[in-house]
């Protein structure tokens, strides 16, 4: 009997031990892109930065009857002869869409680089250096403002590049190889659009240039992704080599325009430290002069605040006068007021009385160190919805452009308020307040998560109206997560959401006027 029981016991253990399952990343199961509406007229839509869709020229392609073209079609046929397992994986992966996949790649780069430098032995902190990105501290520190700006430039540039590409598709009307030669298989859903220049390649071309600027230490990785993408397009039967070359060249040219803007948008001075001088101390002095408790870093050792001059960066949706007059929130409750005391007590309550559900909310929205940041989270939310809508590449790009311009400008307005008011964190004014998530190293008012989420939910609700209510609920939860986490007062969250909503409204205005005929 004994041995029977033991056999049963160890047998059950063996069964239990065979129950391990692989974890599948859900983005790898997205279906191939098969747009319901090809948006063939997108070449007439209004770009963000390009002066016109023809600002950069694309040379006329070789005729489909030319020997040059026939050789390219034969190249595709030879690629398609025997597909390896890894080539099939490439088709599945890149078939889901160029804007989607490059957006995911960017999210991964942000998560990889979202780590603050460790202190030097003398208690100071080194600043990452773009010209020596692989030396520690590696460049960039992809914190939320940095990430918001990166997502915005890449997405807006992809949109402009696609508008230009769609224009030239109609100009040249050269169809893809599977339409020209019945011997070419359609291994991915074939677009009804002309294939020259390739929309996939224009996205790769513009994105690689910008990512190389924003993540200069990852150029090998970025190049390998671009090569994979190119291979997938040749395998698919949707493009020949010259479709891709023309697309990449156009994308690179468009990227140049955005890179020129990025170099002069004042982000370079956002750190606020020049030759070892802490210029940002002017914010502390200003708060003290107003009789308020000024924010103090609670990192050990004390760390200079994150990008104190990010509020001066040039926005996409409004100018600096508009920001100060129409967007900057009113002053927070004075640190000597009853209201401030009341709000601090509320934070203490959430610190001391966590529930499992509030923990879930805090951690679901934390998006802190080592993550793709709150803007990255909203990109993921948007992507998951758009995948279901069968949008064309250009409509994908349009949505991501407006979303990410909104969130970059939310970062600008939020950082403007944070440093203009320089309000202390709850745990600074009451040491009993312990936080349920990492405490960000910058002033409290207004909440960044709330501002990002307000802006994102507003523009996404406009672009995808049937999800507007759901997005709004998410934004509210994201906002409250910072109060539940005991790192923000209620005022920070509420004013952050309001400010974000205003910024989203600017994006809606722009979207309604871009000639797309879309919401």
């Amino acid at each position: 009997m004994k041995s029977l029981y033991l056999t049963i016991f160890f047998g059950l253990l063996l069964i239990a031990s065979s129950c391990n399952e692989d974890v599948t990343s859900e983005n790898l199961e997205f279906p191939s892109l098969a747009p319901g509406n090809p948006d063939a007229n997108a070449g007439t839509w209004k770009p963000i930065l390009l002066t016109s869709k023809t600002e950069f020229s694309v040379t006329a392609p070789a005729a489909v009857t030319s020997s040059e073209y026939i050789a390219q079609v034969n190249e595709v046929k030879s690629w398609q002869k025997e597909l390896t397992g890894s080539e099939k994986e490439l088709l599945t992966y890149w078939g889901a869409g160029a804007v989607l996949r490059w957006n995911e790649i960017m999210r991964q780069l942000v998560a990889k680089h979202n780590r603050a430098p460790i202190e030097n032995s003398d208690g100071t902190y080194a600043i990452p250096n773009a010209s020596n990105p692989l030396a520690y501290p590696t460049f960039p520190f992809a914190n939320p403002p940095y990430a918001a700006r990166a997502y915005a430039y890449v997405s807006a540039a992809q949109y402009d590049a696609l508008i230009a590409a769609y224009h030239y598709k109609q100009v040249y009307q050269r169809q893809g190889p599977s339409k020209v030669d019945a011997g070419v298989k359609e291994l991915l859903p074939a677009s009804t659009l002309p294939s020259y220049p390739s929309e996939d390649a224009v996205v790769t071309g513009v994105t690689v240039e910008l990512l190389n600027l924003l993540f200069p230490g990852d150029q090998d990785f970025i190049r390998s992704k671009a090569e994979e993408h190119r291979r997938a397009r040749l395998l698919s039967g949707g493009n020949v080599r010259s479709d891709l070359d023309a697309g990449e060249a156009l994308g690179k040219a468009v990227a140049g325009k955005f890179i020129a803007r990025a170099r002069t948008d004042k982000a370079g001075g956002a750190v606020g430290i020049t030759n070892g001088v802490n210029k940002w101390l002017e914010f502390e002095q200003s708060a003290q002069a107003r009789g308020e408790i000024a924010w103090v870093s609670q990192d050990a050792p004390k760390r200079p605040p994150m990008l104190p001059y990010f509020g001066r960066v040039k926005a996409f949706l409004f100018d600096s006068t508009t920001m100060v007059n129409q967007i900057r929130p009113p002053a927070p409750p004075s640190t000597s007021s009853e209201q401030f005391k009341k709000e601090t007590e509320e934070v203490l309550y959430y610190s001391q009385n966590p529930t499992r559900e509030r923990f879930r909310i805090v951690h679901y929205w934390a998006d802190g160190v080592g993550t793709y940041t709150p803007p990255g989270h909203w990109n993921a939310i948007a992507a998951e919805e758009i995948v279901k809508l069968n949008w064309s590449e250009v409509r994908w790009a349009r949505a991501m452009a407006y979303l990410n311009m909104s969130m970059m400008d939310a970062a600008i307005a939020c950082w403007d308020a944070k440093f203009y008011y320089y309000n202390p964190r709850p745990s600074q004014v009451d040491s009993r307040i312990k936080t349920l998530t990492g405490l960000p190293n910058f002033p409290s008012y207004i909440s960044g998560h709330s501002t990002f989420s307000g802006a994102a939910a507003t523009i996404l609700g406009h672009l995808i109206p049937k999800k507007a209510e759901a997005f709004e609920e998410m934004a509210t939860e994201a906002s409250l997560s910072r109060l539940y986490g005991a790192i923000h007062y209620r005022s920070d969250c509420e004013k952050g959401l309001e400010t974000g909503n205003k910024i989203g409204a600017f994006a809606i205005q722009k979207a309604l006027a871009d000639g797309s005929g879309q919401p």
Partner: protein
Amino acid sequence: MNIVYLHRCGGAVPHSITTASNLYSRKARLRLLLGFLLLLSIYSQGQTDIDALMMKKNELCAGLMYTTSSWSSYWEGTLERENKNLGTVSTNMLAAMGNFGVRKNVNLLFGIPYIETQATGGTLKGFKGIQDLSLWAKWRALHWTEGNKLASLFALGGYSLPASNYVADYLPLSIGLRSKNVYLRGMTDLKYKIWFLTFSGTYIQRSNITIDREAYYTTEMVYSNQVAMPDQTQLNLRMGYRGKELIVEWISDRMTTLGGFDITRNNMPFPSNRMNMTRTGFQVRYEPKKLNGFTFYASANKVIEGRNVGQSTSYSGGVFYILNFSKKETENTENSSK
């Protein structure tokens, strides 16, 4: 966890405290690490799933073990560092443990700990709660004696699962890692006169865990709330004096995670980090004749080498009591002596 052997008295030692020690995640990780370490030290006590002591048939040995553990430096990957934003991370654990003699050579063990974590630096809040319930079966498959020599072979199997809805993804301050673990252990015990040596090897299979977020970065982005937890192995060597009332032993223990990734520079830890550690320490078990039925434990150990865990020092103390459920007195079948 679940590395406990019960000799005469004890229970299933919480295992997961050890693995929870990923430091990288700042406070949360530190907390978890500390908790793990604490739990581990508890489990390594006598009459647990990792020693060669057996309860007699129909005897239940049950008791409480308290462990306190702390660290101020940890390994970020293989780099040892301190973190002023964590300060000293400490874990306190109170575990209820028990060991029941089904037969003279088959024991069933259980253990369930309550854990609190905290960090002296930074602002992160510590966690507290009931961690994992672990259950073990311990079978002394072979037993050979000749004169003053003794040799035994054991097979053990264990299972542990979370006993509350605690948060795993808050290292180093989470109280556990939430995986459901299956443990398979082989163990041999050798004794000559009063000197003994016990060696065991364990394979720990860990289930995926569910976390509160829908995407995370390891060495790439994963869009899922499921985290694959790499399996682990454990080697445990203990040797020393084993008398009728007193056991004094030196213990060395090596935990290896078969996969997982390193905490990157100044990053937070994550439950699926590659957490390895070598610990060494000693343990005293005392079963005074004058206090019939009581057993007392004390132990101390220190992590001397590790990866993605805290360099913790742990101290434990416990008291157990033996209840006999048989109608008549049974013969003493303790494995250890003679």
